[in-house]
């Protein structure tokens, strides 16, 4: 999500320490929206087809039954649309933010979930980049696993532009370590 640009390092966000400098952020890859979109599209086409058939063929002669069918079709159409729009909004509420000191993962839903996980960059022993399968390699997304002392501290799945983000993270980790050592 974007508002008018300010001085990048001075941006405020939920859970930010005063000494941290904001670097960049990313959401999950857009492919996460593909399944909700396909599901809603299929539902809508099916409902439209049933509605069209009823309208053109006049298969149901009983008025009450036709009214009930119209209401049921409209109801299911509304349900599928509301499910889609809530998934669409949720996509924008799942953000990974990288500062010069930490990686923050903020995951929210419209009502139920408000999660914030943070990992210190200098604590990271390894950053593992994992892309499995043709789709992930072609679309350039995958998982980043941030490992501490022999255990994963944070798994970031569906990381977009994974090669770029991996390089940036490695660079920031080295910088954080050198700052700590100095």
């Amino acid at each position: 999500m974007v508002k008018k640009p300010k001085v990048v390092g001075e941006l405020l966000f939920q859970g930010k320490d005063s000494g941290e400098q904001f670097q960049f952020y990313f959401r999950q890859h857009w492919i996460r929206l593909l399944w909700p979109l396909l599901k809603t599209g299929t539902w809508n086409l099916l409902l439209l087809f049933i509605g069209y058939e009823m309208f053109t063929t006049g298969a149901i002669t009983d008025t009450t039954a036709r009214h009930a069918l119209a209401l049921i079709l409209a109801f299911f159409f509304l349900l599928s649309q509301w499910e889609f729009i809530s998934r669409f909004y949720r996509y924008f509420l799942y953000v990974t933010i990288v500062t010069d000191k930490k990686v923050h993962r903020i995951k929210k839903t419209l009502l139920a979930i408000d999660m914030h996980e943070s990992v210190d960059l200098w604590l990271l022993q390894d950053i593992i980049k994992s892309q499995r399968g043709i789709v992930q390699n072609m679309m350039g997304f995958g998982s980043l696993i941030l490992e501490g002392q022999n255990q994963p501290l944070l798994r970031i799945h569906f990381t977009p532009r994974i090669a770029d983000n991996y390089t940036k993270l490695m660079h920031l980790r080295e910088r954080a370590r050198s700052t700590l050592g100095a």
Partner: protein
Amino acid sequence: MNFLLFFCGLTAVAVLGMEYIMWYLFQRRVSGLHFPHEADSSSRIRFFTMGRMRICAIVHATFTLAIAELFLIFIW
């Protein structure tokens, strides 16, 4: 006819009410997650701003309302 009008009105209220509630919740939740375009590393194409999201919400509400009303009017 009266029932049709009643259900069309009810659908309009439900759609507009639901879309407004979802937009309101989204706006509340997204506060604190506004960042500049140049820092977005999600994609090369940076499209979604709050203004454009609002337009998307209005377009979606209009589309949903239109199709739901069409279902009712044509099949009734």
